[in-house]
């Protein structure tokens, strides 16, 4: 479907619809919060019943998410020792490889056995599509790093990490998308990186993104789009088909795991209709995890958990942060939107709409690591984290564009559009409202209760029931604590055991953190969108302490 994926240059009905859907998320969030407060005041008994029902829903959803978090983590740990390149090579001779798999001795360990089973199923599925993927030797990786103000010490580990994997570096094209307005020390740092690494890859480009290009906003996507266009010209020049290029868009601080490109390559080859798919790894924030304050650590581990859970539901998975996709698809849809902040999710929606719903995200069970936000002082870190979460929540800017597209997308089944729209709204509304409902609003009926209410059994049993629900929820918290400890990097650090114990206790900060550094920034973002106060892009400060 031809669709102008932008909120600019709209006229008439489209402009009205755009504003309507910009207002809607914030309006719904505020209505829920204020409505529940007023409801608690006017009808405390009925409000208390609603809150009990909500608490139970939240508890079951927590357990539900815990199950899939555990399964997803298990899958991640299952694939740690997988030789992806070997599997990718096998795809080159698909039928015989499948026969070899069938005849192979089944692994004895359960993890290996499960991995083998999934792999065999994928290969069989690929065989049955009669589609033949490109040969491994024809596959190239395009890695774009967006750099604005990040120093060499931030960017270099990411570039270097691409040399540590089993995917041959001579088949990797590296593009540093550098803002022309970057400070001189940043530019010189990138020059030094280029000097050090350029000969180790297929090709190494530093693309300077000029300021003031018409139609662009001050957003990262404008930078990466400019760089991608340069990369496209390069691939055309050396006659490499776009279908054989997998594009990965990384933040400046992204450090990929050694098996990232091999895992990505395998999944690219094994996925039928690979052009119409994005590939989402599990983001972790391990680069400086022990240097950051506890609250920032807990929040970012929570983000990793969220992605792990989402990975178990590919039908509704949307791309987040650093991820990969077919370069052909990227070119087809005209790259990332150059006037949107949330390019990571916007690119998925843009592709989804462009291909009339025939686009999906394939989770890949490998990790890439980024920095936890931190600053020189604790208070400055709080501000930075707040701004970062607000920027993430600015993903709500996709809602009006997606909804306008859905209203026109007759080729996408109605049921699918409704399901995705509900998920989109649900994600943003629960982000802003749940922490308040659980921590604050749930106590209001007791405070506003009139004498009449105090004579009812409900007044006394409701707190007991709520207490039981929250006690049961603590089991969910224990699961999160255990998995977060397992997910932490195995690098040796001073006082390793003490740090880990301290990290376990940091999870008790979840109630205030979820309000002040998650719900409030999200509400801030939705309210700005509601009032048309569009956000400037704010570069997350990245720094590493020694």
């Amino acid at each position, binding site marked *: 479907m031809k669709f102008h994926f932008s909120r600019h240059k709209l006229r008439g009905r489209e402009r009205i619809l755009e504003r309507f859907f910009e207002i809607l998320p914030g309006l719904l969030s505020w209505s829920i919060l204020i409505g529940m*407060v007023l409801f608690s005041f006017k009808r405390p008994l009925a409000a208390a019943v609603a809150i009990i029902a909500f608490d139970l829903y939240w508890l*079951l959803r927590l357990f*539900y998410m815990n199950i899939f978090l555990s399964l997803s983590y298990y899958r991640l740990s299952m694939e740690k020792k997988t030789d992806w390149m070997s599997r990718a090579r096998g795809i080159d001779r698909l039928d015989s490889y499948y026969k070899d798999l069938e005849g192979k001795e089944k692994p004895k360990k359960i993890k290996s056995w499960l991995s083998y089973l999934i792999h065999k199923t994928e290969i069989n599925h690929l065989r049955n599509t009669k589609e033949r993927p490109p040969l491994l030797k024809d596959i190239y990786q395009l890695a774009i790093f967006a750099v604005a103000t990040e120093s060499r010490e931030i960017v270099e580990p990411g570039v270097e990490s691409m040399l540590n994997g089993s995917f041959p570096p001579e088949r990797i094209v590296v593009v540093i998308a550098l803002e022309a307005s970057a400070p001189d020390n940043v530019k010189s740092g990138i020059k030094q990186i280029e000097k050090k690494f350029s000969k180790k890859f297929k090709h190494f480009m530093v693309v300077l993104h000029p300021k003031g290009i018409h139609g662009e906003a001050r957003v990262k996507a404008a930078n990466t789009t400019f760089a991608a266009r340069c990369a496209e010209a390069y691939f055309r020049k050396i006659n490499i088909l776009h279908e054989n290029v997998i594009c990965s868009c990384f933040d400046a601080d992204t450090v990929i795991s050694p098996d990232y490109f091999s895992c990505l390559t395998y999944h690219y080859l094994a996925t039928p209709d690979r052009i119409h798919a994005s590939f989402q790894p599990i983001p972790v924030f391990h680069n400086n995890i022990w240097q950051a304050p506890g609250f920032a650590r807990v929040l970012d581990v929570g983000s990793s958990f969220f992605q792990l859970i989402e990975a178990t539901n590919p039908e509704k998975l949307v791309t987040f942060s650093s991820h990969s996709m077919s370069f052909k698809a990227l070119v087809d849809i005209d790259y990332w939107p150059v006037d949107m902040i949330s390019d990571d999710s916007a690119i998925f929606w843009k592709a989804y709409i462009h291909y009339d719903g025939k686009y999906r995200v394939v989770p890949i069970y490998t990790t890439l690591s980024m920095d936890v936000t931190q600053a020189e002082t604790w208070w400055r870190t709080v501000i930075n984290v707040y701004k970062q979460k607000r920027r993430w929540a600015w993903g709500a800017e996709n809602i009006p564009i997606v909804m306008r597209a859905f209203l026109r997308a007759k080729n996408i089944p109605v049921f699918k559009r409704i399901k995705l729209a509900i998920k989109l709204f649900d994600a943003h509304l629960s982000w802003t409202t749940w922490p308040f409902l659980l921590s604050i609003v749930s106590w209001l009926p007791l405070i506003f209760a009139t004498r009449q209410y*105090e004579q009812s*059994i409900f007044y006394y*049993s409701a707190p007991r029931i709520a207490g039981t629900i929250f006690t049961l929820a603590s089991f969910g918290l224990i699961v999160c604590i255990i998995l977060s400890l397992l997910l932490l990097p195995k690098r040796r650090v001073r006082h390793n055991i003490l740090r880990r114990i301290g990290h376990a206790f940091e999870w008790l900060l979840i109630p205030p953190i979820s309000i002040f550094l998650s719900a409030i920034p999200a509400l801030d973002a939705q309210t700005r969108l509601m009032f048309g106060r569009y956000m400037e892009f704010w570069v997350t400060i990245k720094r590493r302490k020694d």
Partner: protein
Amino acid sequence: MLVLRKLIFYIFLIIYLIACPLIVLYAFGFIFKPDAQEPIIKTGLIYLSTVPPGASIYLNGEPTKLKTPSSLQELDPADYAIKLSMDNYLDWSHDIAVAPNKASVFDKILLIPKKREPKILLNEKFENLIPLTGVDFFVLRKSPALKDWVIYYWKDDKQYPLLGEGLDYGNMTVSAVHTIDKSPGMLFYLNSGTGRRYLYVEPDRDKPFIKDITELFTTAPEKIAWDPSQPRQIFTFQKGYLNMIDIINEAVYPRYITDVTGFGFLDKKIYVLGNDYALTRTNLDKGSAEVLLDDKHIGEALFAGKGFFKILPVVEDIILFITEKGELITNHLPYRFTDDGVEGSSFYEKNRRLLLWEKKRVGIVDFLTEVIEGITFEKGPELLWVDVKAGNIEQAFWVYEDSHILFRDKAQAWLIEMEETGRPHLDALIKVRANSSLFYAENTGTLYYLDSASSKLYSLDIIGQKPLQEKEARDKKKEKMKDRLEQEQ
């Protein structure tokens, strides 16, 4: 994984759809007992809290594992014998009828210590104690001579002579003293050799304010009153009009307001019931007049032929009118609460409850607004009398918010615990000197009195320090939460 996800989703959905209504029903007291005649039973609940907390709870003679504050849940509707027991305190027992889907609430049960330890405060004999509400002192009288009157500051347990040295009035005898609730000022009627004198006194540790205002009284007034927040403007009533006496400027404004049948004060405003039974409210300088009642029919029906009304606006929307016979009328339905006999009243503002007393009984009116569905004709608050079998109740106080009432019946002080159901608990506290008054300080939970045997000043702790501190902390927390919510709204 997709199939597994869908399967687990539907399992959880079914769990929620079944569990949610069951939990809500359980919260309302419905429980499922498959063995019973009726499988679904509407249960009730008993909530118990004590001051101090931690009392063991016995249900029908059997110990439960619970301690106060606690609730006994899943009780079949029936009568239950409850006993609370705690070391060093007398057992508390009560028969409680549990109704289906209702909570029988026994909040702030004050446990009576086995041994109450009165504390002697002053080792001198006194004839009487004159209580003043809303201020931090009361007055003690050793003899009718004014020089033998003492101010006792109960917060820091210190006494000071009422008059400083060198004043002429010390040898005059006091024939009466007029005080107003929440006002530190007192008007003494003194007998001097030359006739009656009026002395206005505002006690102070360092520099009391004393003013002889005899010259400002042209005739003996029938009634005297003032606004507690403007005590140096006294209003006297005689023959249907009000004079205003400005103590500071030593000025009299005769016939300041005329055609008066009753008057009272609240927040620097004067409420006047006119001879035409219209009720007006103005500033003390007669500015910004508001007519609160100008319906002649209602006015006549309520006020005609009853004589003078003492008007007590306890809060802005609740006004009491009390005749000299003790008839009580208010501005809330059913308007007339009693025909006669009311000796005194005390209003608990937080829960809008009015305590009244007659000679033989105490009564409570609950003004808290409630919308009762299904009632076509609004009844308004009810006056509930508690027959305490008293002879001559002269004072009564709210204790521990409005959970208890302390009253003096002649020379005996009693404590009643107000229960929602069943008979009230009545405990004899102490015997006091005949014809002397009590003073109760709610802030500290302490009763001050003159001992019946020695006539010395004693104090008795009714409520412990810890429950008071916890109550203060709870009140502060509730206030902060309400302020925050009002700001968010």
